[in-house]
């Protein structure tokens, strides 16, 4: 069967890679000193993508639930870790909280999509499950790390207000409400912004991919709409979860704010 899209030869890929020379020339001309980093980044791009391409090729060919499951698990763990690594704040159990939040929210939403909306047969069909989860994870990771970051900075900056509320008889929930609201709001903003401009300013990667693969635009758009809602709900669940889990660790049952447990990494 002849594929409906243009297959690339390695020569074509190599031609595209030469474009990195533009960046190199700019770096040289403006003395940015980025030459080394550019080279490393270019090599990383090629190595990482080739590696994941080979892995996915293998998983796609194997087409077994455990292989798909394994890949999904690794992706989730990496996302949960990356969300914490990006923020300077540390609280007890933050890694576990992040992984649990990213895992439960993205897998729940991916499951709803696979079983409830798309009815993929079998559910572990790798060319549905893996990219779907990947898109949800990427956005959830962003939201979770923004939410964590904001919660940490709010509690750091407003420790006096939180304590004053507690001293005046507020419950821990009342005292933490503002920082929690700010954190969830901040985490959700990028997704909401993306939904506002999608299709006008930006063509999402998945839709672009489908168009390049020869799918009719209206069909690609339908998929993209589904994806946007999956992403926004997954992100929201992940942020709320991580913020609440962190709150439970920083405010104990005696309605005390354990500010000493919140640290800023330098």
């Amino acid at each position: 069967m002849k594929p409906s899209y243009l297959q690339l030869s390695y020569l074509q890929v190599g031609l595209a890679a030469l474009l990195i020379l533009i960046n190199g020339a700019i770096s040289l001309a403006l003395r940015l000193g980025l030459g080394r980093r550019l080279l490393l980044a270019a090599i990383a791009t090629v190595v990482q993508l080739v590696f994941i391409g080979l892995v996915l090729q293998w998983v796609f060919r194997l087409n077994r639930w455990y292989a798909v499951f394994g890949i999904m698990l690794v992706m989730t763990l990496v996302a949960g870790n990356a969300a914490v690594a990006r923020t300077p704040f540390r609280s007890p159990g933050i890694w576990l909280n992040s992984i649990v939040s990213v895992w439960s929210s993205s897998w729940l939403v991916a499951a709803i999509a696979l079983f409830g909306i798309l009815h993929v047969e079998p559910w572990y069909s790798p060319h549905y499950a893996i990219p779907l989860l990947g898109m949800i994870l990427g956005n959830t990771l962003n939201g979770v790390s923004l939410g964590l970051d904001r919660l940490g900075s709010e509690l750091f900056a407003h420790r006096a207000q939180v304590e004053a509320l507690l001293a005046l008889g507020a419950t821990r929930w009342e005292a933490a409400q503002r920082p929690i609201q700010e954190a969830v709001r901040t985490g959700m903003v990028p997704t909401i912004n993306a939904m506002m401009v999608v299709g006008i300013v930006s063509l999402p990667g998945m839709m672009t991919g489908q168009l390049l693969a020869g799918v009719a635009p209206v069909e690609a758009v339908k998929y993209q709409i589904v994806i946007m809602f999956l992403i926004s709900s997954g992100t929201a669940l992940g942020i709320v979860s991580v913020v609440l889990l962190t709150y439970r660790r920083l405010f104990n049952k005696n309605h005390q704010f354990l500010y000493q447990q919140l640290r800023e990494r330098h």
Partner: protein
Amino acid sequence: MGDSAFAVRRWSPTEERRPGIPFVISENDPILEARDISRRRNGPEGWLIHQVRCRFWEGDRVAITGPSGAGKTVLLRSLALLDPLDEGAIHWRGQAVWGEAVPAFRTQVVYVHQRPALFEGNVRENLRLPFGLKRRQGRRFDEARAVDLLEHLGRDASFLEKEQRELSGGEAQIMALTRVLLLDPTILLLDEPTSSLDQATAHSVETLLGRWHLEGSGSRVLVWVTHDPRQAERVSNRRLVVTSGTVTAEVTPE
């Protein structure tokens, strides 16, 4: 303790724990009691406060004095249960306070920070804020009373309109004290409340708090942390001396 008007009583850790000691004001049980409370230092080994016992009876006016870094603020915060204790417990009317009882306890035992926290908005909104809390439902913000309190501290009704970011350190403290008096607590835990005030305002704060104490017809309790021995003498009828994390002496007038 060079004050001749005060008898110094060294605290003995082996002493039997009962209210038979000379500074007892009421024969009843204490209203607030710290039972052997300790708080560990964060990081290095050691204690911020260690095995502290102290009791407060209805009508008490207590000054807590001692060198900087001795643990006065830690003790005061612990009495309001603002920090987790590593040992011991805080008892309110004979019962240990923990869990869901803590916020209601804090409506009765209010800790006032040395540097008051301000919230968005003007003074009125700041004064009104605690009345929106769950544990204070059924209580209403009384603006006339707020103005009355403010007038005693040399401010008039226009002060209510002042934005929080325009308040000086002293004005913020005036706002914080007014806020807390409007809430009618039973015990006020004051952490150097007059340190940011000029002398005249400091005196009116002392007078106002003294009047508040009297109005409680013997049930209200004032606890002050202060560096100023003369202020301690003015505002208290007994004194706790805290040194290196423990109550080292009780000072009572003869």
